[in-house]
């Protein structure tokens, strides 16, 4: 299995552990920040699963469509502000049956994304319901917006 995904975050991408890439990221961020990510549906990294990422003042919420994947076959890990989702989708094949259509894909997958802010790694929660994975990633205190009162 090839673990892809170091470059798979189009809007905030190129966040890796390597410093030189970090420098490139800063340049690219300046470009990408001018375009609102939500205006670009269909911009994908081309890596399964496709993800939607939203944020609230308290947390990042990541969702992915993973129909037919059971929780035991799914592995979610965090490292720094990176989150990795990997696993396997198993589809039983009936050898004795005659197939008319086979459009559903089975196999392994791995995807890493860099979150655009510091996260509270200890409080990440994940839920898999009706084939949709939802990962709630609370922001670290430093990353939460704070309202400043004007005296």
């Amino acid at each position, binding site marked *: 299995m090839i673990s892809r995904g170091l470059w798979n975050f189009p809007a905030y991408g190129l966040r890796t552990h390597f410093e030189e890439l970090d420098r490139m990221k800063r340049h690219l961020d300046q470009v990408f920040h001018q375009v609102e990510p939500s205006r670009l549906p269909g911009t994908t990294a081309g890596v399964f699963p*496709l993800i939607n990422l939203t944020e609230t003042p308290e947390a990042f919420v990541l969702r992915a469509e993973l129909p037919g994947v059971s929780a035991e076959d799914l592995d979610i890990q965090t490292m720094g502000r990176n989150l990795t989702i990997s696993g*396997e989708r198993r589809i039983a094949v009936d050898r004795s049956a005659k197939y008319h259509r086979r459009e559903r894909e089975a196999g392994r997958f791995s995807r890493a994304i860099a979150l655009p802010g510091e996260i509270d790694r200890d409080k990440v929660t994940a839920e898999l319901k009706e*084939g949709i994975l939802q990962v709630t990633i609370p922001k670290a205190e430093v990353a939460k917006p704070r309202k400043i009162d004007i005296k």
Partner: protein
Amino acid sequence: MTHHDEGKEIQVGKKHEVSGATEQTRSGPVFIPPVDIFESENEINLMADMPGVKSGDVDIDLRENVLTIAGEITPFEGGNEEDLLIEYEVGRYFRQFTIPELIDQEKIDAQLSEGVLKLILPKAEKAKPRKIEIRS
């Protein structure tokens, strides 16, 4: 005998939107669920990926050889969420098939789990292959 496809890496697939003939009354995107259809001696099996659809929100209809599958989704994004990255869209599901075999309507079995619809369409007696003895 069943076995699993193993080791292969999943390729990313874009969701296909319903277009053309079957115009929908309500607005919002409607997607074509990917399916596996396989046939054994006694039944036709259909598996459809419909993530986000709850078991009560799927509608299956078979009449005049046309099988219709429709799935409703309830929006699950919280009101105070702001989009950062949107790679896929969420919408209803709709797909129709012509089933050439005679199906025993009474015995159709449908299950929805983990976002996958599993439909078993048992063939009616008449449609089952019957071995014809040839007398000499």
